[in-house]
């Protein structure tokens, strides 16, 4: 199995790596690039803990091959804050206690950001359905939905 050379952009930075042809983008991020913010909860697209965006589209990085990252733009949780300034979603997740163990949090934040970019003023039901692929076992989701809504309100300037 010959490794593949991939040139990509991750969180705005031009990045190169080599990977095996059957290696997932998640494994590349975690094991080759030390970006361990994306988590593997299942490896089969059922939990959303590995969520990233590829060319602006929300995906499970466990269901993307590393090889497919060639020439695309990948955004991960590590790129969400602007230097020392948290994204409003990150701040509201802390302020509204929307995390307990926190292992699903990076995936949920990436997914929520993708939602608000598409729909800045979602209903609770829209937030719940958009995030249905992000399992959280600690919170019962209540505070997550409220944190997304309060961040959305702040981002709308309310």
């Amino acid at each position, binding site marked *: 199995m010959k490794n593949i050379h991939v040139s990509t952009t991750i969180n705005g930075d031009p990045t190169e790596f080599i990977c*095996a042809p*059957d290696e997932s983008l998640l494994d590349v991020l*975690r094991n080759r690039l030390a*970006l*361990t*913010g*994306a*988590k*593997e*909860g*299942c*490896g*089969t697209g*059922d*939990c959303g*803990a590995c969520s990233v965006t590829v060319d602006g589209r929300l995906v499970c990085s466990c269901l993307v091959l590393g090889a497919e990252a060639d020439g695309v733009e990948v955004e*991960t*949780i*590590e790129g*969400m*804050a602007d230097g020392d300034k*948290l994204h409003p979603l*990150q701040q509201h*997740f*802390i*302020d*509204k*206690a929307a*995390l*307990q*163990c*926190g*292992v*699903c*949090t*990076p995936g949920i*934040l990436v997914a929520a950001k993708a939602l608000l970019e598409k729909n800045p003023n979602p209903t*609770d*039901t829209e*937030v*719940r*359905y958009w*995030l*249905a*692929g*992000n*399992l*959280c*076992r*600690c*919170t*019962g*989701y*209540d*505070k*997550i*939905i409220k944190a997304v809504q309060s961040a959305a309100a702040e981002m709308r300037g309310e």
Partner: protein
Amino acid sequence: MALDENGKRIFKQVGTRPARPDGIDKVTGRAMYGADATAPGMLFGHILRSPHAHARIKSIDTSAAEALSGVKAVITSKDFGTPEDESVRDVQDNCMAGDKVLYDGHAVAAVAANSLAIAKKAVKLIKVDYEILPHVTDVDAAMQAGAPLVQEGRGLDDLPAGMSENVTYHFEFGHGDMDAGFAKADKIIERSFKTAATHQGYIEPHACLASMGIDGKGELWCCTQGHYYVRELCAGIMGMETSQLRVTASEIGGGFGGKTTVFIEPVALGLSRKAGRPVKLVMPREDVFRASGPTASSSTDVKIGMTKDGRITAAHATFRYQGGAYPSGTVQFGAQSAFAAYDLDAVQTIGWSAMTNRPKEAAYRAPGAPMAIYAVESVVDELCQELDLDPLDVRLKNSAHKGTKSSYGPTFDDIGLEATLEAAKAHPHYAAPLGPNQGRGLSCGFWFNFGGNTSVSMNLNFDGTVGITEGNPDIGGSRASISLMAAEELGIPYEKVRTIVADTNSLGHNDVTDGSRVTFAVGLATIKAAREAIKIMCARVAKIWDIDADAVYWEDGFAKPSGPNAGSFDPMSIEEIAAISAETGGPISGHHEVNADGAGVSFGVHLVDVEVDPETGATTILRYTVFQDAGKAVHPDYVEGQMQGGAVQGIGWALNEEYIYGDDGRLQNPSLLDYRIPVASDLPDIDTVILEIPNPGHPYGVRGVGETGIVPPLAAVSNAVSRSIGLRMSALPMSPPRVLKALTAKG
């Protein structure tokens, strides 16, 4: 340790909602969980697991795996010794099968290699010759004489006739004259119930990084609820002295009881010892389902008698739990807690536990209680329906209170059940109208809560800030609540305190993060440690002022002279005292080590409205409200979070979650796709009402809050569904096929 000021203490910080200290790390991806660590020269491990429910291992041929390029170690049970302690032997056998595999997914061998891909390839090259044995996975079948024996020689000494040697535990609790009690009843209902095994379902699979030196010293990094216990178990299995193994707990991605023991850690240590290199081992999700967790499945008979005005005259229940392939006694907690909410003259509970060819049961949030209370609360609800009584009034009428002799023996001190029931009754949810195909259910819940061994150290830094070192992994925000209690006691801002979780070598022993003990016990030790430090600070100041130590007292972060007689001195701040601590005698710290007792029991009441689709049997949760006594809510956000999270786990247990076994004894649904834990769109908001009835056994009145929340949802949802469809449901989960079948049978 007694309650301060009889529960009337006015708090300045406890009860507020500051940001958690680990918040930034967890929202930026910086927090390090079990699978996030690496080490120089690290290898990757992978485990071969049994495809059979029960089989004798005739031989294992690892030669082809060993010969594969990149493979650095292959181990089987032969690479471990035989620990003296039976419970440690069981844990070891569960981590790596000895003569027999006892369940589908039981570990048989393991490989460490240069990459995970090579390790996986090597695992496929291991040849195991199995002699397949008959298996049993159902608890009632396993208890019958003549059932396939999971392990020989482990049955009860005084095994009743007709029972199989798979039966390993028997408990009985209760008091009073049952016959006389039932004779007084106007209505008696007897019913049997079944619940499926469910998994804790933490999103982070078990993961560890083990490094054994050839000098016999070991380092282990892992996600666990209790790294001291991990050290004990692993040292026992590895034949090491505990001092030679240092265990560091990573951030933990959920546990709910499922990370209170070990599954892969000894295997990683064994591989590392053999390879002479660090080994990372991460459980694939499929293995998490097949070989860790779950809770027991249960089979229960309940009989309750009631007068027509709603007084329970007698209550009886028999519980049968299967705890997997090794003896496991959580049925005791079921049998003890079943009727804890009631003040009864005649009550008896009997618990039996049996081994089956399933993964060994691991603790799951209020272990043993949810399924027992489900059965009891279902029958109480049915009695209310039959006698046309209000279910909250009936519970209030029979409610346990201070002075009640509990169903499990001891007499209750201050408890919050009546207040919790009253709060539910007064809540608008209870009076809200219901539409067609809708039903409302309620249930009480109970959990004991524990204290346990705890060590806390508090260091005053020269700049007046404070470091707290504790030894319990933070599952749900405990570093925030510990910091709050330290800040409260010292009278300094929350931001001046940093709490960390130490490794096993940096602090005395700490019991596992379980039993809802951390905020209670670690909080208690933290308060004590702070009080010790305050005493030292006051003594130092007394020396400076040249007055009696007794004449100095502590208030709001300052040492002050206790009155005009003590002399006139300007109060000294903690910063000033810290700055000159080198001159006044050296560094100042406080510490406290205790086996904490006095945990206060916790009650909750849940109210739920559901709608059932009569054509598909699908249940929708429309509205949900949790009422729970928290003692004192140290950080109310995290108390609410525990209540909400527990409720949703219970909803999953009630509606869809289950371990499904085929006739071949294999688990049919070891994936998050088919195990079906609740997703965000399945749920409404989960409203919460925190009651604060102080626990007399804690200076601030704190009770544990983590576990009680999972207890009531099973019955609350079942009662709501039963009322909605006009039919009593008696098995969990109430998956749509099961509900539709019941509806179809009813016609």
